[in-house]
């Protein structure tokens, strides 16, 4: 820290050439251990790949290298607040926060006070920037964005009636409520909705209710994931319901592709699809090059996206001033990341990103499309 202070001091005195003087200090307070490490660790791998790539080329704009100051917050909210305070004290220009709302929000008091932009690695709740305030940004397709994409797709496919299954247990599993809102706005008719508890597994009552509907709904949407989703889908198909089922990124796992006949034709939304020649495929190749192993999760690429966003914002701001970077970040448009083109302009901190729609076909992954949602249709985040 002393060395850094000295560097800064020398730089301000003009003893180092100004072109090389400026370094963008990025404070990374993420969960490298504990429950959240499953998400944060792969994101930070992607962050390192992107930072090395940029620094090898001389830095942002060719002359502003990125320096990462990393701290492990051990998946704990209090530790996040402490680590963020330390990073703020070290004079970082941008902060990277964990994938979960708890620690991110616990740190936001400090972040807002210091007026430094902070980006959560992969939290998808659209309320996060709302609650976190103007310095809080997300880096993952919001639940409401995913829901808009699937509702628009269903409507375009000619589906007129829908049914949703959601769980109030977590914010994420209430995603179908956004779907219903968009589907309704498009002119579709919701035939009903059901709730379940996470881990419930027995869906016979709900399935009976759906099977007895006449006419049957054209589309059934849920954000349930393992173990609930496979149980629900099997029960649904066993009861003879043939409606189109749409899921969300929670079921982007090998289990879904091994379900056999019940999963055939299933469609779900997720963060990216590595089509040949796509930026994601390119990133995956680079990842394998650097680490020697193929990328196991799309969260690696999401980390790469994160740095690309910081790079673009800093370039647009033209300085390392946190306030300037925040303002530039909030107005970013069309940043090319690994998984998607990313836009923050016109949102309140939740990025507009392409969402990939995947269909399960004979146990394989088939790309349905990567539509960008119509901005006016995206529902406002729900606090409840």
């Amino acid at each position: 820290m002393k060395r850094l202070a000295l560097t800064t001091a020398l730089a301000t005195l003009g003893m180092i050439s100004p072109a090389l003087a400026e370094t963008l200090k990025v404070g990374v307070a993420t969960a490298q251990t504990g429950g959240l490490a499953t998400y944060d660790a792969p994101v930070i791998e992607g962050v390192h790949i992107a930072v090395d790539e940029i620094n090898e080329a001389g830095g942002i704009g060719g002359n502003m290298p990125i320096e990462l100051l990393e701290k492990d917050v051990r998946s704990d909210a209090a530790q996040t607040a402490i680590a963020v305070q330390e990073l703020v004290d070290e004079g970082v220009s941008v902060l990277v926060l964990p994938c979960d709302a708890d620690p991110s929000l616990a740190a936001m008091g400090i972040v807002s006070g210091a007026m430094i932009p902070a980006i959560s690695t992969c939290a998808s709740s659209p309320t996060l920037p709302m609650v976190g305030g103007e310095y809080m940004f997300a880096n993952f397709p919001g639940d409401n964005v995913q829901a808009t994409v699937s509702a628009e797709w269903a409507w375009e496919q000619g589906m007129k009636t829908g049914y949703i299954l959601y769980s109030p247990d977590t914010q994420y599993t209430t995603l179908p409520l956004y779907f219903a809102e968009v589907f309704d706005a498009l002119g579709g008719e919701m035939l009903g909705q059901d709730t379940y508890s996470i881990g419930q597994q027995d869906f016979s009552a709900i399935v009976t209710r759906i099977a007895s509907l006449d006419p049957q709904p054209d589309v059934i949407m849920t954000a349930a994931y393992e173990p609930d989703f496979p149980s629900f889908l099997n029960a649904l198909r066993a009861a003879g319901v043939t409606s189109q089922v749409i899921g969300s990124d929670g079921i982007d796992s090998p289990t879904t592709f091994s379900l056999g006949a019940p999963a055939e034709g299933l469609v779900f939304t997720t963060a990216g699809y590595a089509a040949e020649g796509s930026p994601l495929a390119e990133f995956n190749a680079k990842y394998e090059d650097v680490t020697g192993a193929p990328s196991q999760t799309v969260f690696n690429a999401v980390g790469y996206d994160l740095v690309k966003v910081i790079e673009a914002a800093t370039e647009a701001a033209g300085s390392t001033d946190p306030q300037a970077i925040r303002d530039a970040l909030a107005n970013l448009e069309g940043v090319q990341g690994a998984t998607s083109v990313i836009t923050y302009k016109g949102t309140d901190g939740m990025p507009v990103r392409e969402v990939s729609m995947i269909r399960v076909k004979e146990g394989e992954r088939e790309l349905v499309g990567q539509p960008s949602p119509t901005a006016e249709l995206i529902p406002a985040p729900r606090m409840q």
Partner: protein
Amino acid sequence: MLTASPRNMAIALAAAAAFVIVAALVASGLGAASERVLSVFFISLIAVVGIGIYSGNSGVLSFGHLSFMAVGAYVSALLTLPAAMKAATLPKLPAWLAATELGLFPAILVAIVVTCAFALVVGLAVGRLDGSAATIATLGLLIITHGVIIGWRDVTRGSGTFFGVPRETSLWVAAGWCIAALVVARLYRDSVSGLRLRASRENAIAAGAVGVDMKRERLISWILSAAVMAVSGALIAHFLGAFSPKKFYFVDTFQLLAMLIVGGMTTVTGAVTGAVTITVVTEVLRRFESGFDIGAFTVPQVFGTTQIGIALIILFAMFRKAEGLAGLKEWEERVFTRRGAEKTAATLPAVSDRSALTAEHMTMRFGGLTAVNDVSVTLRPGEIVGLIGPNGSGKTTLLNMLSGVLEPTEGTSRLGETKLDGLPTHRIAELGIARTFQNIRLFPSLTVEQNVLVAGLSTGSGEDARARAEAALARLGVAGHADKDAGTFSYGDQRRIEIARALACQPKLLFLDEPAAGMNREETDALMETLRGLTRELGIGILLVDHDLKLINSLCDRILVLNEGRLIASGAPAEIRRDPAVIEAYLGTSQTQDDPAEPGHQPTEENDP
């Protein structure tokens, strides 16, 4: 009322406050990040001390205390959350709660009251259990509370983040409450209730026998510790400003328990030591884990170093310091040894109530075995009655029934007109029956003085407890040992201390189970004199079990002989010596004056009821 010396207590409390204040001053000089580290440390320390109030003093490890922290956090946060925020995020709150907007201090007070009420209800249930069953019940409490908070969405936002809580826990707020928690914990430990609870931790049966109502003391400490946990929960809620139920679950439970166990569960010194050790190690290691340079070497970034370091400390503590780094004593108990033995003028009052113990048809069956079969006895104040019989004849079982340790299968007993049937041991002690145990049951890590004092405090409404304790120690000639731990003495001394402890209960009747075992002839003779004095001078009645027939014959007014659970003879020593049934059953065929059982012989089959 305090059981420790006021001077020591004043030193301990002042030192605790000074420690907190100095730490806070240093941290506030070092900057915002240090202030936050120390605030979290203070909040954790409050929780560690809170768990210690219950687990340390009762010896029952609790996994459930973070539920009280959660209740404190949610209750206080619901009260301080701005009304506009409540309207936006919790629209289904009842109107009176939605409109309430309190400051942090009154919110903490309300949180304490609500948490204590919750703890009372839970404590009545958990308090019925013992040992590992109680520990598992606390684990259940943690899981149930967690589930209820997640399920009660209209009030708690379910598993989602409860945000918007004003961040009002500054370093000095945390420091102030931390001092309060340390003072409460320290005062409780040396309060009458705390001493009784620690006695029951050391030996539950003996504590009951000297009048300690263990369930009541456990409930008191459970509620007090819940109050302290509520403070910790409220403070962390207002430190973070955003939290969810998982903040009060397994991960944090184990982190706080690790601090308590590493430091030493039984003392406040231990709680502080553990919290300081783990915090310091964490803070040091976490600065290294981001990678650093030593000369030409670059040590790479290795996250997880902190957890490995803490795990190693716990292992070290378990192997080398199983009782924790601070051991079993508060620091000032080691540094400032108390006054030596004093000549005491206090004497024990003579027994005024002459009512006798009458037991009829006492029978005890363990499964198919009848240990005691239809035995009737009476014991009057002022007489010494010997109870003899071969090993396994039911002597200890009979004593256990008469003192309430065992509930007889059949039979009834009363003291004067008061029925003793079904009364717990501490009530029987209160009525004036005190006892010692065949396998000595002292409170080994309490001092001799505390051993005896707890008996005085738990009987006769605690009146003149200290005088009674001093007189009892003096009478048994162990007053010089007062300041040392009871567990450190020789067998004979321990027996005398145990008798002194029974005597401090100011009993009408005293049951002594092999009091002379382990004593040499001179010690036994001295003990005989002491016992005679108790009956002649104080009018206490003694029921004496021993294998030393010389002792029995020369001391007892009457002798009862048990064989295979039956009373086969009773009468004056001379009659018993001539009784053919006794000779056949107990003494064998050759009649001798000598003891057929070896002196100091320890019958194993009677060790436990």
